[in-house]
């Protein structure tokens, strides 16, 4: 968060894998407290964009400012220098990320999953962190699962724990990459409910999803990515009722067929 009130400011970001151009001049601003939904067909670069924001991938050119950091770099006497792994990790603490496949740590309990980063990385006191972790479990509706191992939980429960794990670091920005795509249909709403609550609590969020119900209910803006570019960036109302791009119309007609 800088003076402009932006939590995310992406300028002309480009990224290729070999000859495959995956991000082709992306510009995106997200204000504090805003919820931005990104959709688009498979391979359009949605995941890569989120992964670049959180520095799980590095960009080829352009810049990403997020949660108050120039991601992956530091500014030194008007020069921009790439950061080492350990310094990137410090930037990453301020951004939470939730994955399609949950990626909980399977070798430790649910409570340990939530506490591991605050206690082992931030070296905060265990009892204090545990109190917060229990409150987070309450918040995602799973207070009785603290001693379970991830394998023993349903997909919906695992995803809610993954959200709690990310929140334990008190991030300024939350990124969700298709958080409900791997879930059985009856579990989707329990995860979306947690996300809606989070948005109401004022969290800044970028959510890649095809759950248009969530977009209508919680999004401030809906973005369509097509062939490595952002082709639509509108309010949910305009996005669904009055899209400017031909690609959006096509995308919506395909989604509504299902």
């Amino acid at each position, binding site marked *: 968060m800088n003076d402009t009130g932006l939590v995310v400011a992406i300028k002309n970001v480009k990224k290729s894998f070999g000859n495959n151009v995956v991000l082709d001049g992306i510009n995106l601003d997200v204000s504090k407290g805003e919820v931005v939904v990104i959709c688009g067909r498979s391979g359009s670069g949605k995941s890569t964009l989120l*992964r670049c924001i*959180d*520095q*799980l991938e590095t960009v080829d050119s352009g810049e990403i400012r997020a949660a108050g950091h120039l991601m992956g770099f530091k500014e030194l006497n008007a020069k921009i220098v790439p950061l080492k*792994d*350990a310094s990137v*990790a*410090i*930037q*990453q*603490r*301020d*951004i*939470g*990320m939730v*994955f399609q*496949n949950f*990626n*909980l*740590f*399977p*070798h*430790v*309990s649910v409570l340990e999953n939530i506490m*591991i*980063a605050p206690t*082992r*990385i931030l070296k905060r006191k265990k009892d204090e962190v545990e109190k917060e972790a229990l409150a987070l479990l309450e918040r995602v509706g799973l207070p*009785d*699962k*603290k*001693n*379970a*191992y*991830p*394998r*023993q939980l349903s997909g919906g429960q695992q995803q809610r724990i*993954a959200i709690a*794990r*990310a929140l334990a*670091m008190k991030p300024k920005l939350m990124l969700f990459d298709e958080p409900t795509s791997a879930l059985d249909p009856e579990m989707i709403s329990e995860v979306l409910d947690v996300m809606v609550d989070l948005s109401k609590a004022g969290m800044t969020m970028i959510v890649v999803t095809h759950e248009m119900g969530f977009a209508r209910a919680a999004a401030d803006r809906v973005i369509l990515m097509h062939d490595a570019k952002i082709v639509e960036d509108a309010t949910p109302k305009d996005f669904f009722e009055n899209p400017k791009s031909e690609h959006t119309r096509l995308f919506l007609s395909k989604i509504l067929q299902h």
Partner: protein
Amino acid sequence: MSWSWPYFFDYMINGLMLRGVWVTIWLSIISMILGLGLGILAALMKMYGNRGTRYIAEFYIWLFRGTPILIQLVIIYTGLPQLGIRFNVVESCILGLALNEGAYLAEIIRSGIMSVDKGQEDASRAVGMNWRERMWLVILPQATRTIIPPLGNQFNGMLKTTSLCSVISMQELMRSAQMIAQIQFRVLEAYCIAALWYLLLVSIWGLVQTRIEAHYERPFGSEEAKPNNEK
């Protein structure tokens, strides 16, 4: 001279033999622990290092897996003094066994690390862990599950491989049997007792290994392994 039971039973609890058993146990444990350290180091150097460290690790693994441990021990103890590098018997044995073990463990550890789901790296980065934290808190603990069974087999092998140290006069179990056999020429009885002791050590280790494996499987297990949930 035929088989003699009295000698047989006498050798079983012979002081020299028991000392040999004890030496075999600690020599195996110390060499294994040091070998594990070397193995982890070599695996990480090979997987995450720059070109230089990668070549060093690969050379080390290639060298010690490609030559007989017996030659390694002999070179360390009797060959290196020629260059002014001297190790006593115990040091030479530990050094040789650990270096040899590390080369094998490096490959086992490497495949263990590679067996960890790629998503774990993403998740640990995303909560803000640096490389060391990702390794020690997330990747290696999960690799352990894959590493433990072959690691146990390696230790089984280590218990028996220590017998080679007898050639450089380390007084472990094999050497004890040799010495006892030379006193009364009860060769068969002496070596049979040594063999029985190796069997016993390896069998006890088998039991321990099963428990260790069960411990590391627990988080991944099915219903019966469930910890006590409040519900």
